[in-house]
């Protein structure tokens, strides 16, 4: 593996990141070495050729300990196909199917069903293909997706969605069950595909961070930071220290908001309405304190190219420190109640278990990964500024069930509250933002951020004059959705909402 890393060319503005251009033989060799060396596939996507004569290509990003290796395979012939990586990295299947839907570049994997494309456009039309094809809108409004059928005595199917019973995002779940027991779950996503990667190419390089923040609302900070990190990489801009600290503050606040929301919802899904009432109360107070300090309840437009949109004053900073302390102590109290509640223990323990070995085999990542012994946390393992100065303590659990994912959130709430106070106490003086000059040459850069759900990646390729020629956005849910299908096996149908919530994966962030 080291031989590939040493051959890689450093990517501008992205420390610890190298790019390797390979032929189709070494494409598989690299993937094989990464897989056997315990590395992970972070993302895979394809790009059409362009007017400057660049070839179409397929790119894979691998995480190897603290290093990021981007492997690019140019597709020089007219076949527009490449060897799939699904046997080495199971999560590659859906990424390869999505890549074909968007660009028409096909892997040789056996599963060739569409993934992001339903019936909105015909199979031969690809929104990101070059030269752009005349837009075609299919006449049919519903397609016929081939779900895998489970046969046998007493087996029947329950179709759920896309419109669900709660206030949640749309997706379809097809359960094959016997009695109450789930034999198989097959997910179908793509309902909220709204052409985000295409939309990026219509926006200016320094305005598209607003779109990045809206890829997935609950991870707005993570995505907009990843985007700005990539955009700043293209221009070699150095964000001032204070700006970096305020970005980290926003990222930790986002983690805290989501964990509080999830902990309440998880109690509620196990029939403990008290939990929802208490956690949603604390969350609302937190949002108001954030609104008072930073001027937004949710920090959609906090991170901008060059730094942050605003500064924080000393009084607000003290409010936030005091409130973080209060949240930590309230949550400690509620944790005791959760842990002593026999009903919750009964529902949480053993439900939706993903064993450590399975998690590693399937590439479970982020928060759900850390609850199954997959210890990657980029804030610790690959600390980008200012995390290199913050000494984050990593939280990891081994049990892999709902209880572990709940406990991990409780652990992380405490750690995040400590971090928020630390960031604000150590906040360096100076400007929060610098001017960002437009890059004068086309280039390629990546941004990689550990969001609350897991590693979020933006790969950005610019054209001239502030144009974006390709922007690929990747949410950790791409890896974790397929694992949810395994987590539910042998559980009962009524436990699905609870297990699903314990993962809390993205729809919009995945469907793009």
């Amino acid at each position: 593996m080291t031989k590939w890393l040493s051959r890689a060319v450093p990517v501008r503005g992205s420390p610890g990141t190298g790019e390797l251009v390979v032929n189709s033989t070494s494409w598989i060799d690299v993937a094989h070495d990464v897989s056997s060396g315990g590395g992970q596939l972070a993302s895979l996507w394809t790009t059409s050729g362009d007017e400057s004569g660049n070839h179409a290509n397929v790119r894979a990003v691998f995480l190897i300990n603290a290093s990021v290796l981007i492997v690019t395979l140019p597709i020089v012939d007219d076949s527009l196909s490449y060897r799939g990586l699904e046997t080495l990295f199971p999560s590659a299947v859906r990424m390869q199917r999505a890549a074909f839907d968007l660009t028409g570049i096909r892997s040789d994997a056996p599963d060739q069903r569409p993934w992001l494309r339903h019936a909105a456009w015909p199979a031969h039309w690809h929104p990101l293909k070059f030269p752009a094809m005349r837009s075609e809108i299919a006449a049919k409004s519903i397609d016929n997706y081939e779900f895998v059928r489970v046969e046998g005595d007493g087996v029947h199917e329950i179709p759920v969605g896309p419109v669900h019973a709660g206030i949640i995002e749309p997706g379809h779940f097809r359960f094959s069950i016997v009695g109450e027991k789930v034999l198989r779950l097959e997910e179908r996503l793509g309902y909220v595909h709204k052409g985000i990667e295409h939309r990026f190419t219509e926006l200016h390089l320094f305005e598209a961070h607003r779109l990045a923040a809206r890829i997935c609302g609950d991870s707005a900070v993570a995505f907009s930071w990843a985007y700005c990190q990539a955009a700043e990489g293209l221009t070699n801009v150095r964000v001032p220290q204070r700006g970096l600290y305020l970005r980290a503050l926003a990222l930790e606040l986002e983690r805290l908001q989501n964990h509080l929301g999830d902990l309440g919802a998880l109690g509620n899904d196990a029939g403990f309405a008290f939990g929802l009432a208490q956690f949603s109360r604390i969350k609302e107070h937190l949002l108001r304190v954030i609104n008072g300090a930073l001027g937004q309840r949710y920090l959609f437009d906090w991170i901008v190219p060059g730094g942050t949109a605003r500064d924080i004053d000393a009084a607000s900073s003290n409010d936030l420190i005091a409130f973080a302390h209060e949240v930590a102590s309230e949550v400690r109290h509620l944790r005791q109640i959760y842990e002593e509640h026999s009903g919750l223990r009964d529902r949480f323990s053993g439900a939706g278990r993903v064993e450590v070995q399975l998690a590693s085999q399937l590439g479970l990542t982020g928060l759900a990964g850390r609850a199954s012994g997959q210890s990657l946390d980029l804030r610790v393992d690959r600390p980008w500024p200012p995390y290199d100065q913050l000494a984050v303590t990593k939280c990891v659990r081994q049990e892999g069930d709902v209880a572990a994912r709940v406990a991990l959130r409780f652990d992380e709430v405490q750690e995040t509250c400590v971090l928020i106070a630390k960031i604000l106490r150590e906040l360096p003086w100076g400007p929060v933002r610098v001017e960002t000059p437009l890059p004068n040459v086309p280039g390629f850069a990546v941004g990689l951020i550990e969001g609350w759900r897991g590693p979020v990646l933006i790969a950005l390729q610019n054209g001239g004059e502030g144009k974006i020629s390709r922007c690929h956005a990747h949410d950790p849910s791409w890896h974790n959705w397929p694992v949810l299908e395994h987590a539910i096996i042998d559980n009962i149908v009524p436990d699905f909402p609870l297990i699903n919530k314990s993962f809390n994966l993205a729809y919009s962030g995945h469907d793009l």
Partner: protein
Amino acid sequence: MLKTLRTIAGIGIVTEPAPASDEMLWVRHSLQDEVLAILGRALCIRHVDAGSCNGCELEIHALNNPIYNIEGLGIRFVASPRHADMLLVTGPVSRHMETALRRTYDATPDPKIVVAVGDCGCMGGIFGENYASCGRVSNVIPVDIQIPGCPPSPRRLLQGIVTAIAKLPRDARVTE
């Protein structure tokens, strides 16, 4: 159990008193009566995410917290469009959700009210219209009330819902 009860008693009722503005004061005092006069029961809302980034959903969730306590106002979220008086629709409508949204609309009994939520639901937002997005909700189904914002605050959402109630026809009450 004792700890749970102590916590409940210790925190007490956090639901906020009437908001400061006069108009909203009026709303708070008369809303339940208004809903009762029109419907004879709670107002039932069915939320449909037709392509949102989930930002609006975060704030719609907040309506259920004990501070806004929307159920205390006589308004509740229901699981089926067949039980709903109002559809609360978010997102630019993705083309993949177009049919599901139309079917949800058709499944909602008349008279019904449609509230479009967020900059995307009202105007298409940053996503606009393209091969995969139909843009604003009113491009797909008739919309009565729009609540812009990215995302709109829970207070704005409440105001929009309240305004929509005033639009409900007086004969909406189900006769036995």
